[in-house]
């Protein structure tokens, strides 16, 4: 695979091995993959196929056993913890299956917190947070705490939080798994809109048929290897 700067993410011969007790589990067994700017890609496959591991590796939450990962033209492998933290802050947005928004902060504060860490001035923070929350369809719920929001609404906050930092790529780990299909569809439509309007690169991991319908490229994983790669 040639090295072109147009690739958003380059995964070069990456494998990941966990030890569970005495057992060695090969979560990824030497994957190579390139994702382009502005893609809306789904990583599909049964559970245990290595989807989440791959997302965690791309996001710098975990480091590969061997192989390299290049993000936006920059080598990720081997960075220090705080470098990785900075990279996640500025280049990556995360959306988790279990929402994972900070329970003690309101919707707006959750969104603002990322910008606070980026050093965005207070006024701009508030304005951008309001705008993005309106955009994800939470116009009247800026000041609600997570406990006062439904699962779908919480996930919208999580998407708003992931996008507001203007990342190069948003990694979403089974974002619809905890939602009913109607809510999940709404969320997906919203994300697809973001992808078109803002050109944000999205990568999902999923085994949800509906998500795959929305995706423009589907990469199927099986036993830690790419079994199929289809672009619509």
């Amino acid at each position, binding site marked *: 695979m040639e090295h072109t700067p147009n690739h958003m993410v380059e995964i070069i011969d990456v494998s990941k091995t966990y030890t569970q007790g005495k057992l060695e589990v090969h979560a990824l067994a030497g994957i190579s993959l390139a994702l382009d700017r502005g893609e809306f890609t789904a990583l599909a496959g049964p559970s245990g196929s290595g989807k989440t591991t791959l997302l*965690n590796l791309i*996001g710098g*939450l*975990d480091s590969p056993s061997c192989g390299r990962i290049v993000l936006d033209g920059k080598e990720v492998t081997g960075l220090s*913890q*705080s470098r990785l*933290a*900075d*990279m*996640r*802050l*500025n280049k*990556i*947005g*995360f959306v*988790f299956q279990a929402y*994972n*928004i*900070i*329970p*003690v*902060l309101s919707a707006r*504060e959750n969104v*603002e*917190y*990322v910008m*606070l*860490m*980026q050093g965005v001035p207070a006024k701009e923070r508030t304005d951008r947070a309001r705008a993005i929350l309106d955009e994800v369809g939470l116009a009247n719920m800026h000041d609600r705490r997570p406990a006062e929001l439904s699962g779908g609404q919480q996930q919208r906050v999580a998407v708003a*939080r*992931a996008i507001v*930092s203007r990342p190069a790529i948003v990694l979403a780990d089974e974002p619809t798994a905890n939602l009913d299909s109607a809510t999940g569809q709404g969320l997906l439509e919203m994300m697809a809109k973001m992808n078109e309007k803002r050109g944000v690169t999205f990568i999902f991991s999923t085994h949800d048929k509906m998500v795959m319908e929305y995706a423009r490229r589907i990469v199927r994983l099986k036993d830690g290897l790419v079994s199929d790669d289809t672009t619509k």
Partner: protein
Amino acid sequence: MELLMAWRNVWRNPRRTILTILAIAFACILLVFMLSLQIGMYEVMINTAVKTRTGHMQVLADGYNQDHKIRKVISDPEAVARILDDTPHITGYTFRANGFALLSSDQRTYGGLITGVDPVSEPRISNIKSIIRKGRFLSPSDTNSAVIGSLLAKRLKIDLGDELVVLGSARDGAIAATVLTVAGIFSSGMDDYDRSAIQIPLAHFQEVFAMEGTVHEAVITCDSLWNVGSAQTAISKAVAGLEQKRRLTCLSWDELTPGLVQSIQMDLGGGLIFYGILLIMVAFSIMNTFLMAVFERTREFGTLMAIGARPGRLTTMLVYESAFLTLCGIGLGIGAGCLLTLWAQHAGIPMGDAEGMLRQYGIPGLIRPKLTLATALAGPAVVFLITMLTALYPAVKVHRIIPVDAMRAA
């Protein structure tokens, strides 16, 4: 934002937070009260010693304090008086002379310590006038009148107006003998003193004991305990330069009663050990709260790290949380501790059985703590330090959290 998060986090589990705050407050209340109590007691002990016997300072012949030998005198009291008149911070002074003698009434004979005092200046220095229980204190016109300790009077079986034969040895080694009339009976509450002390006019003492105008002690009071040190230095320097038969020294109250100072140190030392243990107990008591606050939120910390928070930021937040918790506890503790102390200061604490014993140290029936800025804040300050140190452990441990594992947890 971190402050806000910390504050909200503190109140996520109100029950636990309140228990922790109460534990911290409890330690503070106890420390404020106990320290005030100890300081209050020490002050009374020192004041009693200063007022009944020693004064703030004394000028003495070198060595007199060790053995109280009658020959170790200040040969020229006038010269000492001139120095004292010129020394700042001195509020008053009086001269005394002491001699040991055999005291005989009609029926009984006991040994006693006779002190010659100046009827005019003595009441300004000591509390003798206020502890007279019967009769009156000496007046300038008295010659062979005496005021006598209540227990000594009881032992000698004498009362006001009775006569008392004194037999001792004078400064020149000759026999010192006189007959005294009891003018007053005093009671300080300190049995040892009341059992042996007797005071007569200084002039009469000098005559009977062949003192030839000399005295043993110049007893001095200062405007405050804090100025004793500087005044002592000044007086020491001045009296050392005097032309006297014996070298003179100036001793402060703590040098005059080393037992008192050491006993205070001992009591304070014992107290400090107790407080130390108490603080360790409180530290362990609340450590679980801090630890749990981190561990049950591992997932949340994982998320924060995933969205780009550096570990240092998490530590800061946790330190804020502990600080809030601690400050609440300390605030409550200082408040309640001060109230309790002020109430006890007002009402006094009865000591029951131990009253008689405490009276011997000059502590009256009711113990009153004394609240000062130092006693109100010293204990809580240490509590703050200890709790923050305790909280630091989990706050630093948060660095070891690995986001992937953290998110998988819970």
